[in-house]
């Protein structure tokens, strides 16, 4: 019985981790520019800007 509870606990932790990663991914917007991600290996690292203009 104890091992079942442990299994349940571990599976819920894994599910929570998966949900956490998913939320991070949506906030990053990675699911929206897969085309760009396909080219990431040939891109330079992004520099950090000092100011924004819109």
């Amino acid at each position, binding site marked *: 019985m104890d091992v079942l509870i442990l299994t*349940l606990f571990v599976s819920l932790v894994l*599910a929570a981790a998966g949900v956490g990663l998913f939320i991070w991914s949506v906030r990053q917007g990675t699911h929206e520019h897969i085309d760009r991600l396909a080219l990431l290996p040939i891109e*330079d690292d992004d520099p950090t800007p000092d100011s924004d203009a819109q």
Partner: protein
Amino acid sequence: MEARSSTTICAHCGAALPPGRADGFCCAGCATVHAILRGEGLERYYELRPLDGRPASPDAERDHKWLEPLADAIEASNGLTRVRVDVQGVHCAACVWLIGELFDRDPRGRACVVNPARGRVELTVERGFDLDGFARAVESVGYLLGPPGERDPRSDALTLRMGISLALAANAMMLSLAMYFGLADGAFHALARQVLFALAAMTVVVGGTWFIRAAWQSLRRGALHLDLPIAIGIVLAFAGSTYSYFAGDARGEFFDTVAVFVAFMLVGRWLQERMVQRNRDQLLASNGAESLFTRRLRDGRAELVRCDAVEAGDTLLLARGDLVPVDATLEADAALRLDWINGESEPLAFERGQLAPAGAFLASAAAVQARADRPFAESSLNDLLAPPARAAGAGAFWDRLGRFYVLGVLGLAAGASLLWAHDPSEALRVTTAVLVVTCPCAFGIAVPLAYELVHAASARRGLFVREATLMDRAREVTRVVFDKTGTLTVGTPELIDRAPIDALSDAHRAALYDLAARSTHPKSRAVAAAFDDGALRADVVAHEEPGRGMHALIDGALYRLGRPDWAAPAHDVDGDLVLAHNGAPIAILQTHEALRPNAREEIEALEATGVEAWILSGDATARVHALADRLGLPRERALGDRSPEDKAAWLRDHGAERDTLFVGDGINDTLAADVALVSGTPSIDRPFMPARCDFYFTTAGLTPVRELLSDARRLRGVVRADLALAVAYNLGAVALAYAGLVEPWLAAILMPISSVATIALTTLSLRRTA
């Protein structure tokens, strides 16, 4: 690398070649962009891009005033500046690569992130970066840049809720499987029930509240939205299961089914919104008058102001391609294009002191000053740019269905309670079972899927849906009304017969090319395009007189190419364009507007399906009738000389809000687009019209418009079949529930089966369309 070549597809975009194009490109835009890419050493684009057929429309003359504040911000910064702009036309990895390559050519550009789905580019640049040069380079290869628009934050929220609900539902199903396969008591069973309850509660909170809030908002507005039956199903099924949980009756707990139902409904909603949102994001935002800028002269300095800040008496400085924001008195001769306001396809000559109408574009090369006659608030443009007030009558079918569904489900649940009134504990379980098995899977997931498949198929053909209710309205269309210039025609003239050119001597022919190729007038460009082997002489100096034509002294002789009464004033010549040698006409040329490829065939095909085609134009009636003759339309269905208000009035008088699709491209069409039941536009390179239409299309021909109507009719058949299947399932499932036979395990099987059955029916029915 050479562009992929084929005899049937465009070497640049991969679209099917229209009949008569022998150069391997579907349009002049693609040919231009191909030449630029080859000239710049960017042929790798053709290795990366898919062949999905989106012709390019390079435009080197767009107004870039909106870039000036951004450029100022870059210059004011001492370090790096991040600049966000919207981009239109990016659709694949090749586009992303191409924009990145163009960006990298300026060493002060540090990073360029292109997001094709959102239609956005984020640039990180150093001081001195040539933003205007970058914009022109990007637009020269067929993309459009614009100021960043606001994005609907609900889109990300829906994706998040759907993903989390799916994870919760999957875990709930895993636990309930253990129970269905024998876990019936003990400490782990109790723990599993608690976790199951918690997972279902979280699913309802995370996912169910999306529908509950939408249903509540629609009720407050007095409307009955489809979210209402979904929300009622979720709330009652969860409430009944919760009661059974606390009452200790495991047979009345349907937590796993509730969780899966919520997740499925969110998948359906996400599918429904994804394509429409994506199509919207890929067009530049249009913020009405707020996105229009002009230059005003104050104290001897030109300042950039929003058009709605223009006051009567202001002096405006207009450059080539600039919009005249208000009626303004010209302070110099100029040529103006009025196609945006009245469909008139040719630039017209205006003299100093004449009134330039609001909505005209300056076509002549030299900048001119003009004095504003009235403030922007009184400009006719202000009315044309006002937000559309479309009546929301499209969802009548779904409203009726939703109403019947809600009443039906509540009646069935009440019937179950009455039937089992003699046994209160069973009555609750049976009633909960009825509410669970009647959850509206068909229109929660299968119907959105059907719409998604049809929208995706349209997008592959080059037609992009902007309004989710378009297909519901399009199936009612029995009449299609086209604007003329830019819609049925491509807006540029073509030479009818090149025999007069062939009859010229070599010297005269060379002079004709020297004049035509140096002109900015569309008719002269049509003449230049008729030359396969034209070569410009470097020693020729040609002059253009706006609205009249070109003239040059070549080898001691005066050549003129232009209006007959100007080129050869001493001769009575009945021509469209005349080449004169020392005042004597030597070639009389006729042009007409070039039709969109397959326009005639598509109009015939529309008529064959019982849909009436009409032309409603602001251009002269004689020209509209001539076009009708070329298209094989009766002249009584070709109406010219119509102002924007006349067009809207005609449509209103003819019941267009019930049965008419209007297709137009200019700002003069916005009022008509607001009146018609459905509206569409081929013009995505100019603001306003796409933002007011239900769809836009990017193909050279009109085929997607006809296919839209046939898809809408086919979609109706599929939706009805889905609903019929759902009704049959519900009748069977409710009968089982009434008999007290629906246990949680059976509900957990029945609901996915009904969903999968309707999804399979939808997919198979629309396989040919997709």
